[in-house]
């Protein structure tokens, strides 16, 4: 599989080493299954589902935090729909040329091109960001629909798993691809955290501070594309954007600092993914939908917790200084 070989080459890890690591991960979960009697951990596809889920629950809120606080929450939706077009491109090319390209790889490429297009459209046409997102979203979905209808024979059948996600379709190759995406995303965010934070908080001040805002916007958009494709495997195109937004929104309710918010969003996402995957196994529900519903439940809990917790903070601050008393609000 091209997708399997290309990504480790980029990350610098040989394919075999990643496969070896996957085997050890399986051994670990099997041991847990033996010790705890958890039936779901006896299946290989569940091992992959949990690994992929855990990785997604780190990278989606990591990027989502930088999106939500710039009021770009919808970019995930737009890119998810273009990723769907990317899948259609991959399936179409495979069907017509008889190649074996992973549709996830074409989805990454198409989504990243779309991510750049969103930034460029808003830069060039001076439009609001949500306008360019809406344009790219529609284009993506239209392109996907047209390509699928062109060869509706075998194609339409295969598309369902990308639209709705499926635990059992997570293959070893897909997992390796996701590990690659995960490494790239965490490394890039780790290296550019300060710049991303500054740009997210105040674009103009960031420019005055000498940060090339346009480039960081593009970087964020492309990282978003990677997350979307990574998460597509179990969430499905339609629900993928929820992972970028819902845990982040919940974390913002309970966290005070940006670092706390980042950490809390990852914790909430992990909780949603682990509980969601478990529930979807035992009740045989769709994984993406279950994870999102759990995440929304957690979000509601965070809102309630935030409302309880934020009041003492406001009371403690007021009246502590003369300026506090005359606070102009």
């Amino acid at each position, binding site marked *: 599989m091209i997708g399997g070989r290309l990504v480790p080459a980029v990350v610098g890890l040989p394919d075999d080493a990643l496969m070896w690591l996957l085997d050890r991960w399986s051994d670990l979960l099997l041991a847990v299954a033996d010790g705890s009697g958890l039936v779901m951990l006896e299946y290989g596809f569940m091992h992959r589902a949990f690994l992929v889920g855990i990785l997604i629950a780190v990278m989606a809120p990591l990027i989502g935090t930088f999106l939500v*606080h710039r009021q770009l929450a919808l970019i995930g939706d737009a890119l998810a729909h273009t990723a769907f077009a990317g899948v259609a491109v991959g399936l179409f090319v495979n069907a017509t040329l008889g190649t074996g390209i992973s549709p996830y790889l074409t989805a990454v490429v198409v989504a990243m091109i779309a991510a750049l297009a969103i930034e460029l459209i808003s830069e060039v046409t001076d439009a609001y960001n949500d306008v360019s997102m809406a344009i790219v979203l529609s284009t993506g979905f239209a392109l996907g629909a047209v390509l699928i209808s062109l060869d509706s024979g075998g194609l339409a059948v295969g598309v369902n798993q990308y639209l709705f996600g499926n635990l059992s379709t997570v293959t070893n190759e897909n997992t390796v691809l996701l590990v690659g995406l995960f490494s790239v995303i965490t490394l890039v965010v780790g*290296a*550019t955290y*300060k*710049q991303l*934070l*500054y740009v*997210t*908080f*105040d674009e*103009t*001040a960031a*420019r*005055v*501070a*000498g*940060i090339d805002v346009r480039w960081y916007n593009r970087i964020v958009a492309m990282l978003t594309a990677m997350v979307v494709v990574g998460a597509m495997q179990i969430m499905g195109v339609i629900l993928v954007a929820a992972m970028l937004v819902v845990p982040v929104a919940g*974390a*913002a309710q309970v*966290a*005070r*600092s*940006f*670092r*706390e*918010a980042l950490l809390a969003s990852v914790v909430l996402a992990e909780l949603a993914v682990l509980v969601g995957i478990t529930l979807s196994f035992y009740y045989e529900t769709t994984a993406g939908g279950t994870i999102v519903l759990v995440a929304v439940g957690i979000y509601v809990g965070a809102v309630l917790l935030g409302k309880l917790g934020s009041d003492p*903070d*406001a009371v403690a*601050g007021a009246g*502590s*200084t*003369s*300026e*506090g008393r*005359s*606070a*102009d*609000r």
Partner: protein
Amino acid sequence: MSLVELEGVSFGYTATPVVRDVSLAVESGEYVGIVGPNGSGKSTLLRIVLGLHEPDSGSARLFDSPAGAFAERERVGYVAQDVTGNATKMPITVAEVVLMGRFPHAGFGRIGPEDREKARDALETVGIDRLADRRITKLSGGQRQRAYIARALAGEADLLVLDEPTVGVDAESVDAFFGLLDGLNREGMTVLLVEHDIGAVLDHAGRVVCLNREVYFDGPPTEFADSDALDRAYGTTVRRDGDVTVA
């Protein structure tokens, strides 16, 4: 060397210039207040000074290098109108915002204990160190503007550029805010301030620039009060410009 040097700068977002043929130099240690009516190009002029806009004609220099290509970004602190209160609901503490002043120093490197100490010192200087762990959105407008000054101080800026910093700040806090600027200026900070409140500029700045697309006055506050620049810049009165009458 002038910290800011504009020479014959004209700029327009469209064909109509927003600022026309503006020449202005700010020397180290000065406290310059720019006044002018709404839409007179004050904020645009600041954006040109900061290198956010390239002038259509003329030259803009910052610390003796072209403003657009100016590299030592940490030397300039920028405080805008307080829009953060409404614009962002981002969870971020005062301490985190002030620490951003250290980011240009750190580049891609790590923020160290020394950076944190400088940020703490800056918070003490502006008198809001006790608010360090509060969310910036929970502060009053005046406190928030202090936090942005602290960010500039943490970056060890030599030049403080402020764009109508007291909009939306209550009167009592405005006085305290100008008191803080006076103190910083006495200690050597160069201040370039755009302000709609002419009285405040006359009280605090060492030099007044009156702008309405072009410079109408540039000199000490006492002379400005005696001149007719204010009427000419703000009023609709016809003025003589050479032998051309300009409405």
